[in-house]
Protein backbone atom coordinates (compact mmCIF):
# COMPACT_ATOMS: atom_id res chain seq x y z
CA UNK A 1 0.00 0.00 0.00
CA UNK A 2 1.20 3.48 -0.82
CA UNK A 3 2.08 5.46 2.31
CA UNK A 4 -0.93 7.80 2.74
CA UNK A 5 0.89 10.16 5.12
CA UNK A 6 2.20 13.53 3.88
CA UNK A 7 5.79 13.83 5.21
CA UNK A 8 5.54 17.59 5.79
CA UNK A 9 4.89 19.42 9.04
CA UNK A 10 1.44 20.94 9.58
CA UNK A 11 1.30 24.71 10.10
CA UNK A 12 -2.43 25.16 10.51
CA UNK A 13 -5.80 23.68 9.68
CA UNK A 14 -9.13 25.45 9.27
CA UNK A 15 -10.73 27.67 6.63
CA UNK A 16 -9.61 30.63 4.51
CA UNK A 17 -12.54 31.90 2.47
CA UNK A 18 -11.91 35.04 0.41
CA UNK A 19 -13.56 37.76 -1.64
CA UNK A 20 -11.70 39.80 -4.24
CA UNK A 21 -13.80 42.34 -6.15
CA UNK A 22 -13.09 44.43 -9.25
CA UNK A 23 -15.17 46.87 -11.31
CA UNK A 24 -14.03 45.30 -14.61
CA UNK A 25 -12.35 42.02 -15.52
CA UNK A 26 -8.93 43.58 -16.09
CA UNK A 27 -9.44 46.42 -13.63
CA UNK A 28 -7.76 47.06 -10.30
CA UNK A 29 -8.83 45.07 -7.26
CA UNK A 30 -11.19 47.29 -5.24
CA UNK A 31 -11.76 44.86 -2.35
CA UNK A 32 -9.58 42.13 -0.94
CA UNK A 33 -10.92 40.19 2.07
CA UNK A 34 -9.22 37.15 3.59
CA UNK A 35 -11.30 35.42 6.28
CA UNK A 36 -9.70 32.73 8.45
CA UNK A 37 -11.35 30.27 10.80
CA UNK A 38 -8.49 28.40 12.48
CA UNK A 39 -9.01 25.13 14.32
CA UNK A 40 -5.35 24.43 15.02
CA UNK A 41 -2.26 26.61 14.90
CA UNK A 42 0.75 27.11 17.17
CA UNK A 43 -1.12 30.08 18.68
CA UNK A 44 -4.42 28.30 19.13
CA UNK A 45 -7.77 28.48 17.37
CA UNK A 46 -9.71 31.59 16.40
CA UNK A 47 -10.83 33.87 13.62
CA UNK A 48 -9.34 36.77 11.70
CA UNK A 49 -10.44 38.98 8.82
CA UNK A 50 -7.89 40.93 6.80
CA UNK A 51 -9.61 43.62 4.71
CA UNK A 52 -8.58 46.28 2.20
CA UNK A 53 -11.44 47.87 0.29
CA UNK A 54 -13.06 50.99 -1.06
CA UNK A 55 -15.29 50.84 2.04
CA UNK A 56 -12.16 51.23 4.21
CA UNK A 57 -10.85 54.01 1.91
CA UNK A 58 -8.10 51.64 0.85
CA UNK A 59 -6.78 51.12 4.39
CA UNK A 60 -5.94 47.65 5.69
CA UNK A 61 -8.04 46.64 8.70
CA UNK A 62 -7.61 43.54 10.81
CA UNK A 63 -10.38 42.02 12.94
CA UNK A 64 -9.79 39.03 15.22
CA UNK A 65 -10.77 37.15 18.36
CA UNK A 66 -7.19 35.88 18.89
CA UNK A 67 -4.43 38.46 18.42
CA UNK A 68 -1.68 35.89 18.99
CA UNK A 69 -2.93 33.68 16.18
CA UNK A 70 -3.37 36.77 13.99
CA UNK A 71 0.23 37.91 14.40
CA UNK A 72 1.47 34.37 13.76
CA UNK A 73 -0.68 34.17 10.63
CA UNK A 74 0.68 37.50 9.40
CA UNK A 75 4.28 36.41 9.87
CA UNK A 76 3.87 32.91 8.48
CA UNK A 77 1.15 32.95 5.82
CA UNK A 78 -0.07 36.43 4.84
CA UNK A 79 3.54 37.58 4.37
CA UNK A 80 3.62 35.09 1.50
CA UNK A 81 0.09 35.63 0.17
CA UNK A 82 -0.32 39.43 0.37
CA UNK A 83 2.39 41.48 2.10
CA UNK A 84 0.04 44.43 2.78
CA UNK A 85 -1.80 42.17 5.24
CA UNK A 86 1.46 41.23 7.02
CA UNK A 87 2.17 44.65 8.59
CA UNK A 88 2.22 43.96 12.34
CA UNK A 89 1.99 47.68 13.21
CA UNK A 90 -1.66 47.63 12.12
CA UNK A 91 -3.80 47.29 15.24
CA UNK A 92 -6.04 44.26 15.64
CA UNK A 93 -9.68 45.14 16.31
CA UNK A 94 -11.22 42.73 18.82
CA UNK A 95 -14.30 41.20 17.19
CA UNK A 96 -16.92 38.50 17.37
CA UNK A 97 -17.39 36.13 14.45
CA UNK A 98 -20.51 34.32 13.32
CA UNK A 99 -21.72 32.39 10.30
CA UNK A 100 -25.00 31.53 8.65
CA UNK A 101 -26.06 29.72 5.49
CA UNK A 102 -26.50 26.31 3.92
CA UNK A 103 -23.34 26.11 1.79
CA UNK A 104 -25.48 25.19 -1.21
CA UNK A 105 -27.31 28.44 -1.95
CA UNK A 106 -25.58 31.02 0.20
CA UNK A 107 -23.08 31.53 2.99
CA UNK A 108 -22.43 34.58 5.19
CA UNK A 109 -19.60 35.29 7.61
CA UNK A 110 -20.29 38.08 10.09
CA UNK A 111 -17.69 40.13 11.95
CA UNK A 112 -18.79 42.51 14.71
CA UNK A 113 -16.64 44.90 16.72
CA UNK A 114 -17.79 47.65 19.09
CA UNK A 115 -18.08 50.14 16.23
CA UNK A 116 -18.28 48.11 13.05
CA UNK A 117 -20.35 45.35 11.53
CA UNK A 118 -19.19 43.43 8.45
CA UNK A 119 -20.92 40.84 6.35
CA UNK A 120 -19.18 38.71 3.74
CA UNK A 121 -21.70 36.82 1.61
CA UNK A 122 -21.12 34.26 -1.11
CA UNK A 123 -23.88 32.99 -3.45
CA UNK A 124 -24.33 31.43 -6.88
CA UNK A 125 -22.22 28.67 -5.39
CA UNK A 126 -20.44 26.37 -7.85
CA UNK A 127 -18.94 22.89 -7.74
CA UNK A 128 -16.25 22.33 -5.11
CA UNK A 129 -12.81 21.03 -5.97
CA UNK A 130 -9.67 20.09 -4.07
CA UNK A 131 -6.51 22.12 -4.42
CA UNK A 132 -3.47 20.05 -3.43
CA UNK A 133 -0.01 21.63 -3.63
CA UNK A 134 3.21 20.40 -2.08
CA UNK A 135 5.57 22.90 -0.40
CA UNK A 136 7.27 25.00 -3.09
CA UNK A 137 4.85 23.94 -5.82
CA UNK A 138 3.04 27.30 -5.79
CA UNK A 139 5.18 30.06 -7.24
CA UNK A 140 6.78 32.23 -4.55
CA UNK A 141 5.25 30.19 -1.75
CA UNK A 142 7.44 27.89 0.35
CA UNK A 143 4.40 26.26 1.96
CA UNK A 144 2.10 23.51 0.80
CA UNK A 145 -1.70 23.61 0.98
CA UNK A 146 -4.72 21.35 0.80
CA UNK A 147 -8.04 23.13 0.40
CA UNK A 148 -11.62 22.39 -0.60
CA UNK A 149 -12.39 25.43 -2.75
CA UNK A 150 -15.99 26.32 -3.59
CA UNK A 151 -16.06 29.02 -6.25
CA UNK A 152 -18.93 31.51 -6.20
CA UNK A 153 -20.09 33.60 -9.13
CA UNK A 154 -21.42 36.32 -6.88
CA UNK A 155 -20.39 37.82 -3.55
CA UNK A 156 -21.02 40.91 -1.48
CA UNK A 157 -19.12 42.65 1.30
CA UNK A 158 -20.66 45.34 3.48
CA UNK A 159 -19.20 47.50 6.25
CA UNK A 160 -21.78 49.18 8.49
CA UNK A 161 -24.31 48.72 5.71
CA UNK A 162 -22.14 50.25 2.96
CA UNK A 163 -21.62 47.82 0.10
CA UNK A 164 -18.19 47.45 -1.49
CA UNK A 165 -18.04 48.28 -5.20
CA UNK A 166 -17.23 45.72 -7.87
CA UNK A 167 -17.95 42.05 -8.27
CA UNK A 168 -16.08 38.73 -8.48
CA UNK A 169 -14.65 37.54 -11.78
CA UNK A 170 -13.77 34.10 -13.08
CA UNK A 171 -10.13 33.05 -12.81
CA UNK A 172 -8.19 29.91 -13.58
CA UNK A 173 -6.09 27.57 -11.46
CA UNK A 174 -4.24 25.67 -14.12
CA UNK A 175 -6.99 24.55 -16.49
CA UNK A 176 -9.66 24.66 -13.78
CA UNK A 177 -12.15 27.53 -13.81
CA UNK A 178 -12.67 29.14 -10.42
CA UNK A 179 -13.57 32.59 -9.06
CA UNK A 180 -12.03 35.54 -7.21
CA UNK A 181 -14.64 34.80 -4.50
CA UNK A 182 -14.40 31.33 -2.94
CA UNK A 183 -15.35 29.52 0.18
CA UNK A 184 -12.19 27.65 1.16
CA UNK A 185 -13.06 24.98 3.67
CA UNK A 186 -11.04 22.08 5.07
CA UNK A 187 -7.78 23.90 4.46
CA UNK A 188 -4.44 22.72 5.82
CA UNK A 189 -1.06 24.41 5.30
CA UNK A 190 2.16 22.41 5.44
CA UNK A 191 5.88 23.14 5.49
CA UNK A 192 8.94 20.94 4.94
CA UNK A 193 10.46 19.54 8.12
Amino acid sequence: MVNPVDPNKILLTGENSFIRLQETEDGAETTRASHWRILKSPSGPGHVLFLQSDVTDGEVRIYSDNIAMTRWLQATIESVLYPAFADETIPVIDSEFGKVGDGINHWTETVDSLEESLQLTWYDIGEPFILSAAPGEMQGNPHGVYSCLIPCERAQLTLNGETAAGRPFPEMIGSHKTSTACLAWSETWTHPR
Partner: protein
Amino acid sequence: MADMVDPNEVRMTGENSFIRLAGEQGGTETTRASHWRILYSPGGQGHALFLQSDVTDGDVRIYSDNIAVARWLQDEMESMFFPAFTDQTIPVAEAEFTASGDGINHWTETIETPYETVSMAWHDFVEPFVIQSAPNARPGRPLGIYSTFVPARKAQLTLNGEAATGTAQSDKLGDAVSSTCCLAWSESWMKER
Protein backbone atom coordinates in the same frame (compact mmCIF):
# COMPACT_ATOMS: atom_id res chain seq x y z
CA MET B 1 -0.13 24.18 -12.33
CA ALA B 2 -3.01 22.08 -13.64
CA ASP B 3 -2.08 19.07 -11.54
CA MET B 4 -2.66 21.04 -8.31
CA VAL B 5 -6.39 20.47 -8.85
CA ASP B 6 -7.62 17.02 -7.87
CA PRO B 7 -9.64 15.67 -10.85
CA ASN B 8 -12.15 13.80 -8.67
CA GLU B 9 -15.63 14.87 -7.58
CA VAL B 10 -15.90 16.19 -4.02
CA ARG B 11 -18.62 14.29 -2.12
CA MET B 12 -18.24 15.93 1.26
CA THR B 13 -16.05 18.19 3.30
CA GLY B 14 -15.97 18.66 7.05
CA GLU B 15 -14.70 16.61 10.00
CA ASN B 16 -14.84 12.98 11.14
CA SER B 17 -13.25 12.70 14.57
CA PHE B 18 -13.40 9.31 16.25
CA ILE B 19 -12.90 7.43 19.49
CA ARG B 20 -12.25 3.70 19.59
CA LEU B 21 -11.55 2.29 23.04
CA ALA B 22 -10.27 -1.13 24.06
CA GLY B 23 -9.18 -2.75 27.32
CA GLU B 24 -5.69 -3.44 25.98
CA GLN B 25 -3.60 -3.12 22.84
CA GLY B 26 -5.12 -5.52 20.31
CA GLY B 27 -8.09 -6.19 22.58
CA THR B 28 -11.76 -6.18 21.65
CA GLU B 29 -13.14 -2.74 20.88
CA THR B 30 -15.51 -1.73 23.68
CA THR B 31 -16.46 1.67 22.26
CA ARG B 32 -16.64 2.91 18.70
CA ALA B 33 -17.77 6.50 18.13
CA SER B 34 -17.72 8.27 14.78
CA HIS B 35 -18.49 11.99 14.97
CA TRP B 36 -19.18 13.98 11.79
CA ARG B 37 -19.38 17.73 11.27
CA ILE B 38 -20.41 18.26 7.64
CA LEU B 39 -19.99 21.57 5.82
CA TYR B 40 -20.87 20.28 2.36
CA SER B 41 -22.50 17.04 1.23
CA PRO B 42 -25.39 15.85 -0.94
CA GLY B 43 -27.47 15.82 2.27
CA GLY B 44 -26.56 19.39 3.17
CA GLN B 45 -24.79 20.53 6.32
CA GLY B 46 -25.03 19.14 9.81
CA HIS B 47 -23.69 16.76 12.42
CA ALA B 48 -24.02 13.07 13.19
CA LEU B 49 -22.69 10.74 15.87
CA PHE B 50 -22.66 6.98 15.36
CA LEU B 51 -22.04 5.20 18.65
CA GLN B 52 -21.67 1.60 19.84
CA SER B 53 -20.32 1.15 23.34
CA ASP B 54 -20.54 -0.62 26.66
CA VAL B 55 -22.43 2.49 27.84
CA THR B 56 -25.13 1.74 25.23
CA ASP B 57 -25.11 -1.95 26.22
CA GLY B 58 -23.65 -2.70 22.80
CA ASP B 59 -26.55 -1.08 20.93
CA VAL B 60 -25.87 1.20 17.98
CA ARG B 61 -27.21 4.72 18.52
CA ILE B 62 -27.36 7.50 15.98
CA TYR B 63 -27.67 11.19 16.88
CA SER B 64 -28.00 14.00 14.33
CA ASP B 65 -29.30 17.50 13.64
CA ASN B 66 -29.92 16.62 9.98
CA ILE B 67 -31.40 13.20 9.31
CA ALA B 68 -30.69 13.58 5.58
CA VAL B 69 -26.97 13.95 6.32
CA ALA B 70 -27.08 10.99 8.72
CA ARG B 71 -28.75 8.68 6.21
CA TRP B 72 -26.41 9.82 3.41
CA LEU B 73 -23.40 9.17 5.65
CA GLN B 74 -24.71 5.68 6.38
CA ASP B 75 -25.10 4.96 2.68
CA GLU B 76 -21.91 6.38 1.30
CA MET B 77 -19.38 6.76 4.12
CA GLU B 78 -20.02 4.44 7.06
CA SER B 79 -20.61 1.59 4.61
CA MET B 80 -16.86 1.75 3.92
CA PHE B 81 -15.88 1.64 7.59
CA PHE B 82 -18.27 -0.18 9.86
CA PRO B 83 -21.38 -1.97 8.54
CA ALA B 84 -23.09 -1.93 11.96
CA PHE B 85 -23.47 1.84 11.56
CA THR B 86 -25.25 1.54 8.19
CA ASP B 87 -28.53 0.01 9.37
CA GLN B 88 -31.14 2.54 8.25
CA THR B 89 -33.82 1.00 10.48
CA ILE B 90 -32.04 2.45 13.51
CA PRO B 91 -33.87 5.65 14.45
CA VAL B 92 -32.00 8.94 14.42
CA ALA B 93 -32.22 10.84 17.70
CA GLU B 94 -32.56 14.60 17.12
CA ALA B 95 -29.65 16.25 18.93
CA GLU B 96 -27.72 19.48 19.38
CA PHE B 97 -23.98 19.50 18.76
CA THR B 98 -21.36 21.83 20.20
CA ALA B 99 -17.57 21.92 20.36
CA SER B 100 -15.09 23.41 22.81
CA GLY B 101 -11.36 23.33 23.45
CA ASP B 102 -8.12 24.77 22.15
CA GLY B 103 -6.98 21.95 19.88
CA ILE B 104 -3.59 22.10 21.59
CA ASN B 105 -4.35 20.65 25.02
CA HIS B 106 -7.89 19.32 24.76
CA TRP B 107 -11.03 19.16 22.62
CA THR B 108 -14.59 18.18 23.53
CA GLU B 109 -17.60 17.44 21.32
CA THR B 110 -20.95 17.50 23.13
CA ILE B 111 -24.16 15.92 21.86
CA GLU B 112 -27.41 16.61 23.67
CA THR B 113 -30.93 15.27 23.31
CA PRO B 114 -33.78 15.86 25.77
CA TYR B 115 -32.83 12.56 27.47
CA GLU B 116 -29.13 12.02 26.86
CA THR B 117 -25.85 13.90 26.94
CA VAL B 118 -22.84 12.39 25.20
CA SER B 119 -19.44 13.96 25.80
CA MET B 120 -16.39 13.02 23.73
CA ALA B 121 -13.06 14.41 24.94
CA TRP B 122 -9.59 14.08 23.42
CA HIS B 123 -6.33 15.14 25.10
CA ASP B 124 -2.58 14.41 25.25
CA PHE B 125 -2.12 15.01 21.54
CA VAL B 126 0.77 13.84 19.39
CA GLU B 127 1.93 15.60 16.23
CA PRO B 128 -0.77 16.04 13.55
CA PHE B 129 -0.33 14.83 10.00
CA VAL B 130 -2.18 14.83 6.69
CA ILE B 131 -3.35 11.63 5.03
CA GLN B 132 -4.30 11.46 1.37
CA SER B 133 -5.52 8.56 -0.67
CA ALA B 134 -7.01 8.41 -4.17
CA PRO B 135 -10.39 6.79 -4.95
CA ASN B 136 -10.07 2.99 -5.22
CA ALA B 137 -6.51 3.08 -3.89
CA ARG B 138 -7.52 0.39 -1.39
CA PRO B 139 -9.90 -2.54 -1.78
CA GLY B 140 -13.35 -1.62 -0.48
CA ARG B 141 -12.56 2.10 -0.56
CA PRO B 142 -14.20 3.57 -3.66
CA LEU B 143 -13.73 7.08 -2.28
CA GLY B 144 -10.51 9.00 -1.85
CA ILE B 145 -9.69 11.16 1.15
CA TYR B 146 -7.73 14.16 2.39
CA SER B 147 -7.75 14.54 6.16
CA THR B 148 -5.76 16.24 8.91
CA PHE B 149 -5.36 13.79 11.79
CA VAL B 150 -4.62 14.99 15.31
CA PRO B 151 -4.00 11.77 17.26
CA ALA B 152 -4.72 11.73 21.00
CA ARG B 153 -3.03 9.42 23.48
CA LYS B 154 -6.01 9.77 25.77
CA ALA B 155 -9.74 10.10 25.25
CA GLN B 156 -12.95 9.73 27.20
CA LEU B 157 -16.55 9.17 26.20
CA THR B 158 -19.41 9.59 28.64
CA LEU B 159 -23.15 9.01 28.28
CA ASN B 160 -25.21 10.79 30.93
CA GLY B 161 -22.10 10.95 33.06
CA GLU B 162 -21.21 7.26 32.79
CA ALA B 163 -17.72 6.83 31.36
CA ALA B 164 -17.09 4.15 28.75
CA THR B 165 -14.50 1.57 29.75
CA GLY B 166 -11.22 1.08 27.92
CA THR B 167 -8.54 3.42 26.71
CA ALA B 168 -7.11 4.81 23.49
CA GLN B 169 -4.58 2.47 21.89
CA SER B 170 -1.55 3.41 19.82
CA ASP B 171 -1.87 2.88 16.08
CA LYS B 172 0.26 3.35 12.97
CA LEU B 173 -0.80 4.97 9.72
CA GLY B 174 1.88 4.57 7.11
CA ASP B 175 4.99 5.75 8.93
CA ALA B 176 3.10 8.08 11.27
CA VAL B 177 2.42 7.52 14.96
CA SER B 178 -1.32 7.58 15.38
CA SER B 179 -4.02 6.48 17.78
CA THR B 180 -7.42 4.81 17.85
CA CYS B 181 -8.69 8.21 19.04
CA CYS B 182 -8.15 11.11 16.64
CA LEU B 183 -9.51 14.47 15.78
CA ALA B 184 -9.91 14.35 12.01
CA TRP B 185 -10.32 17.89 10.76
CA SER B 186 -10.33 19.43 7.29
CA GLU B 187 -11.50 16.17 5.82
CA SER B 188 -12.78 15.81 2.25
CA TRP B 189 -13.90 12.68 0.42
CA MET B 190 -13.92 12.33 -3.37
CA LYS B 191 -15.10 9.84 -5.94
CA GLU B 192 -13.99 9.27 -9.51
CA ARG B 193 -16.01 11.18 -12.10
